């Protein structure tokens, strides 16, 4: 657009200047041409006047009438003399054009017809010469006697050329021609190409060069002066203006391009980078890095705001992702718990039915064992040993069923005050201790009693204690039972001498059906934790620094009303 505007402006300016230069040149040429024409008219009129004076001289009339007219004519004509080198001859001619007397030589006149007034003839080409004729009629009364005729060659007048060169320049050329266009000459010779004029102006090519021309008639003659001047000389100034314009245009366009490039660097490139970053952000990727804009302008501020926005988007997205992760994790846990609960509910019903149905046959088997033991008094010892094994296995089966039923049947706890020392005295003997294991009690001197369901918590304690004994795996060692009061709570700890619980099992051991034993349902600790929680407490496990496991039964103490 800028380019077009500059080009248009340049073209308009150039055209205007060119036109104005041409008009000026034409006007000057016209002026010069007219001055030259005026000068020439004066000299031609002067010459014609002198011819007429001779023609009106009585001596001339007499010369036509005398017998010795020829010599008399010569005397008269000598007054016109060879005043310039341009005169070829001066003659007296009769009306038919026959020469009566000639000063130099006899030549045919140039006028085609008889004239009653003094006149200048059109230019005539004769051989190599360009001729013109001044003639004036000689009358006696009303009778035309003949003409005084002077033929001249057309010559360049040095004064005229000098004037022309001074006024216009050495490249100006002067042409003279007949007004009817029949002959044109540059004052040296006839020229083939006539000036082409419209009115008194012309513009045409001569020998490949565009020329400007103006014409002016030479008064009192049938001649036309034309001054030609090469257009390029006229237009040199406007041409240089054109080049200046082109240069300025190129400068402006180049400058514009440079400015555009700089703007692009300063505006477009940062904008493009921001756009790309925005697209990256909207497609979920990180904004990425791009060179900062250090300017203080709108782009710089936009860049700043954009970076702030990108950062908050990034943080918001991170927060969101973190929240989604957290929620997802929580949901997964909830879902897992629900699935587990559902599974356990189904399993629980099934186990409960199976357990109940198994109890009857087990009861019958127990009865059989009892009966056989009672009746086979005299049978070998091995039979009784087998009956003992049978009885043991029945008890084990009953224990498994009891665990299952405990697990599936949530009875509300019937709480009462339970003194801890007494509780331990009751419970500890229920567990059969292998010979190598020794129990150490470590009780606070003034322990508050527990406020719990004695049976349920007893079950929890027995479970934990049995577990500890099994963990020590017959190797023997010390089993520590600690009890502490703490702000309305009682902490019952059972620490064994075993290998401890692998870290990855620390939470899982409380999951139903999780077991590391070859036997067992994996319900014991799960049931125990549920029971502890039902009693307002909890069951947790950790590993002692020296390797054993520490089970902690946390329970509410009596005397604290909640």
């Amino acid at each position, binding site marked *: 657009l800028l380019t077009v505007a500059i080009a248009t402006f340049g073209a308009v300016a150039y055209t205007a200047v060119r036109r104005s230069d041409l008009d000026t040149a034409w006007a000057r040429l016209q002026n010069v041409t007219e001055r030259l024409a005026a000068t020439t008219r004066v000299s031609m009129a002067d010459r014609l006047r002198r011819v007429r004076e001779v023609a009106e001289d009585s001596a001339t009339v007499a010369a036509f009438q005398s017998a010795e007219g020829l010599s008399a004519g010569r005397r008269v004509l000598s007054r016109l003399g060879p005043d310039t080198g341009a005169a070829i001859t001066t003659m007296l001619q009769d009306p038919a054009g026959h020469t009566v007397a000639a000063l130099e030589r006899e030549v045919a006149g140039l006028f085609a017809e008889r004239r009653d007034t003094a006149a200048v003839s059109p230019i005539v080409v004769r051989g190599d010469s360009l001729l013109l004729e001044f003639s004036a009629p000689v009358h006696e009364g009303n009778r035309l006697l003949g003409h005084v005729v002077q033929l001249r060659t057309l010559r360049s007048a040095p004064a005229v050329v000098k004037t022309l060169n001074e006024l216009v320049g050495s490249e100006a050329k002067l042409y003279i021609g007949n007004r009817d266009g029949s002959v044109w000459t540059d004052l040296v010779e006839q020229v083939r190409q006539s000036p082409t004029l419209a009115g008194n102006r012309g513009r045409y090519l001569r020998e490949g060069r565009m020329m400007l021309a103006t014409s002016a008639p030479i008064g009192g003659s049938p001649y036309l002066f034309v001054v030609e001047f090469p257009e390029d000389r006229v237009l040199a100034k406007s041409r240089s203006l054109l080049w200046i314009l082109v240069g300025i245009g190129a400068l402006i366009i180049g400058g514009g391009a440079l400015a555009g490039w700089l703007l692009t660097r300063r505006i477009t490139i940062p904008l493009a980078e921001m756009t790309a970053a925005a697209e990256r952000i909207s497609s979920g990727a990180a904004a990425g890095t791009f060179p900062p804009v250090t300017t203080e302008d709108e782009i710089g501020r936009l860049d700043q705001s954009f970076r702030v926005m990108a950062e908050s988007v990034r943080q918001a997205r991170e927060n969101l992702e973190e929240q989604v992760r957290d929620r997802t994790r929580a949901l997964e846990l909830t879902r897992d718990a629900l699935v587990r609960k559902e599974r356990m509910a189904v399993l629980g019903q099934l186990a409960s039915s199976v357990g109940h149905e198994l*109890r*009857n046959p*087990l*009861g019958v088997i127990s*009865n*059989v064992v009892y*009966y056989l033991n*009672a009746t086979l008094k005299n049978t070998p010892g091995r039979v009784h040993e087998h009956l003992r094994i049978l009885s043991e296995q029945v008890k084990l089966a009953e224990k498994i069923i009891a665990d299952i*039923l405990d697990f599936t049947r949530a009875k509300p706890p019937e709480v009462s005050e339970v003194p801890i020392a007494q509780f331990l005295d009751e419970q500890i003997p229920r567990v059969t201790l292998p010979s190598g294991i020794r129990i150490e009690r470590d009780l606070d001197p003034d322990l508050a009693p527990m406020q719990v369901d004695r049976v349920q918590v007893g079950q929890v304690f027995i479970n934990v204690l049995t577990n500890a004994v099994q963990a020590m795996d017959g190797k023997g060692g010390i089993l520590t039972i600690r009890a502490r009061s703490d702000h309305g709570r009682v902490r019952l700890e059972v620490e064994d001498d075993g290998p401890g619980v692998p870290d990855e099992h620390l939470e899982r051991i409380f999951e139903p059906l999780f077991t590391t034993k070859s036997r067992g349902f994996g319900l014991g600790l799960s049931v125990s934790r549920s029971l502890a929680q039902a009693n307002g407490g909890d069951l947790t496990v950790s590993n002692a620094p020296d390797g054993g496991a520490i089970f902690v039964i946390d329970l509410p103490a009596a005397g604290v009303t909640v």
Partner: protein
Amino acid sequence: MKDRTILVVDDDPGMVETLCDILELHGWHPVRAYDGAEAIAMVREGEIDVVLMDVRMPRMSGAEALRAIKARHPEIPVVLVTAMAAQEVLNQAERDGAVRILKKPLDLPLMLQVLEQAIAA
């Protein structure tokens, strides 16, 4: 010394059979019934000193049979055996006159002791 006739009621013949044999070892004279209605009929025929009856049975439960027996023969002690029953059922059974409610799996020495006490009373 009484006849020590004891009516053993359970829908599981294995249980009835083994219990009867064990009771015989301990000087009881057991008779058998396999549901509540049968037990009531047996009691009506007379000669029953003690009833040992499972609570959960098809057709007529031990708890219902207990009420029927006690209605006619409040003097006959009834010992109930149960694996699992709702607490209110057990409470009701106690109000209806059950001597004792034993839990399964049966502790046989305890059972024998309870029965001895019941007949001595």
